[in-house]
């Protein structure tokens, strides 16, 4: 027999877990709808629209076939991959030295650097002054216009610095006693101990660059250079997908299925790596938050 207290505890647990189940359904339902829309065969679509549920053997992959056979889609994917990889590499190359300098307590001028950087974090002059700079540098229709201006994030630098701060001073001092200079200390001591934070910040940057769609719209006029999110936006907001994807009345899939499939294909890399990196992200956010 359960006592009243345990019974009320059981009721409370049922309530709380029920709430969480509802939250899960609310998160899953929209994604499920996109999945179903992308797999709806054209015959079903013209007859009854998108069914709420279909068994896997009723699914049609025609929309995916059509997109993956599309040169414009493949080129946009390639552009996105190039932007994400080169942008992440450049960002890390610029962020690591800054975080290392800021975590070197004895560095003359450290406070000046902190002030210079913090100010850019607190005050933004707005879109047009940045736009004028990039156009004056002649970077239109150049992928550098996408990866250079946002290369270093103050937030990511602070998170990385907080991690570097946690590496015991004694280890570094011991290496210096053995005649190592700052460069060797960074390369041989600090970086090997910092793999988790390099992964975290690297993923932060990679996600940012993979998702970026505004600066490509701003600076890339050449359709051949556009990354995936811009193509996706064009496919989604055009009245007819045929402007961007080969598509006609004899097509094997509905335009809604093509839209849904391109949403899912753009999400796919994120969905694949997400479960593995999620833990790092959470930690990174907390490091940034508990910093004094």
């Amino acid at each position, binding site marked *: 027999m359960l006592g009243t207290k345990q019974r009320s505890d059981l009721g*409370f*647990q049922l309530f*709380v877990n029920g709430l*969480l189940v509802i939250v899960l359904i*609310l*998160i899953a*339902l*929209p*994604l499920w*709808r*996109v999945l179903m*829309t992308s797999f709806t065969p054209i015959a079903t*679509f013209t007859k009854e*629209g*998108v069914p709420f549920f279909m068994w896997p053997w009723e699914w049609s992959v025609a929309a995916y076939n059509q997109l993956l056979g599309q040169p414009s889609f493949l080129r946009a994917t390639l552009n996105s991959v190039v932007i994400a990889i080169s942008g992440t590499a450049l960002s890390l190359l*610029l962020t690591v*030295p800054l975080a*290392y*300098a800021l975590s*070197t307590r004895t*560095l003359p001028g450290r406070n000046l*650097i902190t002030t*210079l950087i913090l100010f*850019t974090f*607190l*005050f*933004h002059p*707005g*879109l*047009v*002054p*940045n*736009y*004028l*700079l990039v156009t004056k540098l002649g970077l239109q229709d150049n992928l550098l216009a996408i990866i250079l*201006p946002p*290369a*270093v994030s103050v937030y990511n630098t602070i998170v990385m610095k907080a991690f570097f701060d946690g590496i015991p001073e004694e280890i570094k001092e011991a290496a210096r006693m053995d005649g190592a200079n*700052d460069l060797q200390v960074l390369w041989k001591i600090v970086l090997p101990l910092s793999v988790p934070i390099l992964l975290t910040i690297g993923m932060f940057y990679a*996600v940012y660059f*993979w*998702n*970026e*769609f*505004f600066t490509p719209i701003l600076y890339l006029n050449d359709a051949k250079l556009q990354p995936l*999110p811009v193509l*996706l*936006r064009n496919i*989604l907001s055009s009245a007819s997908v045929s402007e961007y994807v080969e598509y006609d009345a004899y097509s094997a899939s509905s335009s809604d299925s093509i*839209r849904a499939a*391109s*949403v899912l294909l753009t*999400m796919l890399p*994120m*969905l694949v790596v997400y*479960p593995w990196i*999620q833990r790092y*992200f959470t930690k990174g956010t*907390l490091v940034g938050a508990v910093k*004094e």
Partner: protein
Amino acid sequence: MWKHRWIYLLVTPTLLYYLIFKYIPLYNAQLAFKDFKPLLGVEGSPWVGFRFFETFFNSFYFSQLITNTLFFSGARLVLGMPVAIMLALALYETRAMFFRQFVQTATYLPHFLSWVIMFGILLMLLSPGSGLINDVIKSLGGTPIAFLTSPDWFRWVVIGSDIWKETGWSTILYLAALLSISPELYEAAAVDGASRLQRIWHISLPGILNVVVLVTLLRLGNILEGGFNQLFVLYSLPVYSVGDIIDTWVYRQGILEFQFSLATAVGLFKGVIGLVLILVSNNIAKRLAGRGLY
């Protein structure tokens, strides 16, 4: 300084990056007080004082843009935050640990989706032709609603989609604060016969009050951020009256209409207000919560 020459050498490219990509735009911001002539450049264009600021303050758009911007940032705070706190409490209270982990993983995911992807998801839910919600409305005998282009509905689509996307992620801070509350407090309360809800009310909520105050102040400091990436993708001509925020207007005026000086003035206005707000917020946070935001 010689001792640290390698660090200086290493950090020089980053500092150059800051000078070029952060401080030259700052210099370019003088355009707000000049009448920009492309042929004369930023330096050569004639000074006009506060003319463009006056143009903006007196324009028909001013109150509409401020209202819309404040509406979105305010609604995110007032509606989004309680939802996130409730989810954090539910995650904290459940004793099914594996299930908690699973819900966390699932609810963090949307945070990593870009607004273009979100736009696609919203179309699949809301489009009058084949959207899920309109399918439900039709099957109940109603007429489909064009949510994304209806001025009555657009705002709620913006707020709702933002809550769907960000609630899970914003529980991280609250959950961390809840987990740092000493279990002894709960045990002592249980001995005293406090019910579950009493424990939440008297221990959990006061325990996360500091974090709530900090987050609120940070959001207040960013109150002029209406959510550019979201609105840039979601809005369209029919909903400009309820969806146009300062940043989207600056984009259209500056980049599409070539009103460089006017757009710079508005951007600078927003930047200065933002700076003042964040400094004040930080000051209050230091006094109330004992620590600042940075």
